[in-house]
Structures are given as structure tokens and as C-alpha cells.
């Protein structure tokens, strides 16, 4: 992800020399000069066209009656029929609500924690200890979603450590993954475990750019460690925080589809089923391709609008932009 933390100077500065250029080179000349470079772009462009843009166009099956096994561009036009169908589908609204709730919960919990951890790491003066904590906390980031799901299941089985802890308090064992009420807690906790350490990297980098003199003058003004964090450190990483927040808000609907697919089951559908898992079951499992595509397109468009909206908002209010 490219993050511009100082957008206002970068934007105009990039454009100024382009305007000052004495007339653009004709396309033919540019091609004759750089044709070898363009040839290097052929295969990557083919990749993007085939595997990224063709599926976008393939969304037209949301407006057609598509037969499984048929061509991506086959079928007869049915207009907005499938959109009307899912808007009237109570299950759709349930999974929509679940997506929003899980997305919001994940953002609210998983976004601030790396900042806190980065601030804590920043206070550590012993380098070996700091590096050790960092190494350990990054580790879960490198695990496959399948492994994380398997670990979650092992911890939560009837004979697992969490139930062992419960038995000390005299409670009966709980089949955690069968409890709809607990699914979101389990999901968000595992997200925290997996992402909190890795999320500190960018903040730690931003922290190194804060001017030491600011701390010195804060100290002279009589500020303790905590007040220094509040008045110097946090303002210092504010642009980074805001940029990442924009990105997070923009993509909050893109919940961890793979992990939910591995962890949920019919008993937890009421709280765990999200748009992407629902359309997976509708499309891939049951073969209702057009219907599932309509839902997928709806979600993708919302996602796009959210990213652009969040970016616009942050550009207007704080001058930080993703691009």
C-alpha cells in the first residue's frame, strides 16, 4: 500500500514540471524510443486483463440468466431481477448486518491496538528485549489462515486450555464454536492475535522520525513520560494514524472471509455468516451463479464507494490522501 502522509506538497509538486515541459513527445516517437520497455509490460498487462478485468466484465452475469458450465458471456438478459431478488431476501439482510457488525468490531478493536503496542515498544530502552518482543509479535502474521483456524479450534475444544481454565471456576465445558453469541468475540480475538504485532511496523517507523528536541523541550516544560507521549509522540504519528484509518474505514466491509469460512458452521450462521460466505455458498456450492454475482457486485461497489468516500473525507478534513 502506498501511503502519502504529506499529500499537499506532493500533489502539486508532481504536476508542475509536467506542465512546464515543452510540448509532449508524439506517441510514435515515444514508442520508437521505448518499445522494449513496452514489451516488458505485455505479459503483466495480459495478467491484469485476464485475471482482474475480465472478471469485472464477467459481472454482467448478474444481469443475465447464467447456466452453470456455460460461457461467462452466455445467457439471456434479465435486467435487475437478481438485484430485486436479494433486496427482498431476509437472509441477505442478515448477512449484510453481520458483515457491518464484524467489520466495525474488527476495525474498532484491531485498529488502535497496534498504536498502543508501538507506543509501548517505543518506551523500551533495552534493545535486545525490544527486538525479542517484536519478533514474537510478528510471528502469527506468517501463518496460513488454515493454521490460525486450526489453532483457534484446538484452544477452544472441550478439552482445550480455555475450557480447562473454565473448569477451575467450576463451570461446565463450553463448545465455544457452536455458540452463536461467542463467534464475533472469537473472530475478533483471533484477528488481534494475528495482526497486532505486524501492525506496529509502520508506526514504529513513523516514531523514529519524531524530532528528539521536541522531547527535550517537553521535559524542560516539566512533562512526564505519559504527558510526552500525549503531547509529542501522538501528534508526531498523527498523519500515519489518519492515513491508515482512512484505509481501514474504506475496507472495513472486506471482513476476513477465509477465516470465517473455516470457523463458522450452521450453528453460528446467525452471527457469523457474512456477505462473502453467503455468496460463496449460493454460487460455488449451490450453483446460483447469477444471484451470487449480483450480491458480490453490490458488495464490491459499496467497497469502492467507501474507499473513495473515506479518502475524500480525509483529504478535505486533514489533507491526507491515499493517492
Amino acid at each position, binding site marked *: 500500500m502506498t501511503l502519502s502522509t504529506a499529500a499537499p506538497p506532493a500533489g502539486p509538486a508532481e504536476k508542475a514540471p509536467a506542465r512546464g515541459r515543452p510540448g509532449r513527445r508524439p506517441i510514435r516517437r515515444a514508442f520508437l524510443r521505448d518499445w522494449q520497455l513496452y514489451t516488458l509490460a505485455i505479459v*503483466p498487462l495480459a495478467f491484469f486483463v485476464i485475471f482482474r478485468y475480465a472478471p469485472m466484465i464477467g459481472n454482467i452475469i448478474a444481469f443475465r440468466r447464467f447456466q452453470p458450465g456455460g460461457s461467462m458471456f452466455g445467457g439471456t438478459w434479465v435486467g435487475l431481477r437478481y438485484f430485486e431478488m436479494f433486496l427482498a431476501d431476509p437472509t441477505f439482510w442478515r448477512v449484510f448486518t453481520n458483515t457491518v457488525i464484524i467489520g466495525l468490531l474488527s476495525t474498532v478493536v484491531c485498529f488502535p491496538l497496534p498504536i498502543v503496542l508501538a507506543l509501548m515498544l517505543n*518506551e523500551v530502552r533495552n534493545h535486545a*528485549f525490544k527486538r525479542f518482543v517484536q519478533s514474537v509479535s510478528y510471528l502469527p502474521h506468517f501463518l496460513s489462515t488454515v493454521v490460525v483456524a*486450526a489453532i483457534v479450534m484446538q484452544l477452544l475444544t472441550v478439552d482445550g486450555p480455555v475450557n480447562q481454565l473454565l473448569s477451575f471456576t467450576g463451570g461446565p465445558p463450553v463448545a465455544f464454536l457452536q455458540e452463536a453469541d461467542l463467534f464475533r468475540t472469537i473472530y475478533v480475538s483471533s484477528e488481534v492475535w494475528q495482526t497486532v504485532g505486524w501492525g506496529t511496523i509502520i508506526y514504529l*517507523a513513523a516514531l523514529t522520525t519524531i524530532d528528539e528536541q521536541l522531547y527535550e523541550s517537553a521535559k524542560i516544560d516539566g512533562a*512526564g*513520560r505519559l504527558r510526552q507521549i500525549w503531547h509529542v509522540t501522538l501528534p508526531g504519528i498523527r498523519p500515519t494514524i489518519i492515513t491508515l484509518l482512512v484505509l481501514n474505514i474504506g475496507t472495513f466491509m472486506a471482513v476476513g472471509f477465509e477465516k470465517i469460512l473455516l470457523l463458522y458452521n*450452521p450453528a453460528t450462521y446467525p452471527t457469523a455468516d457474512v456477505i462473502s460466505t453467503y455468496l*460463496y455458498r449460493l454460487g*460455488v456450492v449451490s450453483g446460483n451463479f447469477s444471484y451470487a454475482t449480483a450480491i458480490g457486485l453490490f458488495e464490491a461497489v459499496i467497497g469502492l464507494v467507501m474507499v473513495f468516500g473515506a479518502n475524500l473525507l480525509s483529504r478535505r478534513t486533514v489533507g491526507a490522501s491515499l493517492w
Partner: protein
Amino acid sequence: MVSRVRWVNATLLIGVVVVTLYPFFNIVARSFSAEKYIVSGQVNLWPKGFNLTTYQIVMSDPVFWINYRNTVVYTVVATAISMVVTTCYAYVLSKPHLRGRKVLIGVAVFTMFFSGGLIPQYVLISNLGLTNTIWSIVLPNAISVFNLLVMKTFFEGLPRELEEAAAIDGMNTYGILAKIVLPLSKAVLATMVLFYAVSFWNSWFPAFLYLDKIEMFPVTIYLRNLIAGATGAESAGANPDVHSEIMQVASNIQAVTIILTILPILMIYPFVQRFFVSGVMLGAVKG
């Protein structure tokens, strides 16, 4: 006052370390424990009824090794292809004078924010006849836009003079890329290889979608099928005794399979971790 804050801070950080590592130690303890102690909830951080039988069971399953080998093959092939394609495009995008550069960047970046979606992608792969081939795993994820932008940023930071001198000497673009640019980029290339390799090693969903032959599964699907069999409500059979027995065996074997799956990553992790961190830093800087 200051020293008290520092002690609280250190204690909390030790807590973070414990919470992060605890699941690993628990899984390791389970993998070496006898079934009966696991079932009765007695295994926590230390194995009880130490044995290697579970390891022998898993490692004597030919399917496990076939799937493990598949993971290695998929990772190597996919990483190699991804590296070639990503390097070429990143190099093109790093040339500020190139006509149409902004469009070429836009083509890539737009896909970060809008995707065709699961079903059209699935239909496309079927239409192309890639289902049940290695290409369904390798090709659809050949370029990670994040990695692409990291490489582009790196190339942009290379000194221009060397390339210009080589061009004046009559070397063509391909030669400059292969003989001048790439040797200067070993650090970023290593980072990218690791990024891609870890993501392909860990990947399971494309295989889950597009492969349905057991002998083609990667090891992640082997593990998924174990845990799906052990927990999914669909496996809740009529006979509770049979069911619970299946669950216990799977629980034991799961621990071993988890460990064997993450072992390669755990072994290289201490040595390569800094590459990952530097990669993220590069990606975080505006290109």
C-alpha cells in the same frame, strides 16, 4: 515514577509475548501427548504421556507427503512466475519518462480497490479450463499489487547514471534490466521472493475452489479437511460414540499436522524476518 511506568510497560509486553506464544506451546504439548490425557483436559503446556506415535501416524500417511510435496511445487513454480512478471512490470512503471506510465500504474492500483468478485473469477477459471491444474493456483495470483509497488519504489531509488551509461554503450533495455538493475536489487528481490513464497505456502482458498483431486491438494487443504472433519456440524453423525472417537483422533493429529505445516516457516523466520520488515517499510513510503 518514570521507572515504575517502565516496569509496568515491560510487564505488559511480557504478557503480549506470553499470549502470542502460548497457543504454539499448547499445540506442541498436545502433539507429543497421549490421547487419553488430551481427552481428559490434562494437557496444557507440558506433554503428558509423551509419545511420538502421532507423528508416526501422520508421517506414514502417503497422502500427507503427496500434499506436502504439492505445496512445495506450487510455492516454487508460483513464486518463480510471480517474480518474473512482477519485476518486469515494476521496472516499466519505475521509468518516469515513459509515455502512458500513469495509465499502466492505474491499471494495477485500481484492482486493489475493486475486484471482479468470487463468482465471476470462479466462472472464468472454469471457462479457461484451468480447474484441476496447477495453473489455477499459480496464474490468478501472479501479481500482488502491494509487492509490485514495493519493487517500483525500490527501482525508482536506484541511481540513474549506471543505466544511462549502459544505454550509451549500446546495451538494450533487457540487458540493462538483467545485468545492471537486478544485481543492484538483490535485497528487494530477496524480500519479494519471501513475500510471495510465504503467501503461496499459506494459500488454501484457490486450491479449495479449483482442485478436487486429493493427489493435487496442497498441505493446507489436508489440514483444512482434518479440522473440517473434526468440528463441522455436518460430521455430527448418528452414533455419538463413533463421532467422539473420530474427534479425539483428529484433535491429536491436528496438532501434529499444524506443526509440520508451519515448521518450514518457523525455521526460516528468525533469519528472514528483517527482510519482511524492510519490505513493509518500502511499501509504506509513497512511490
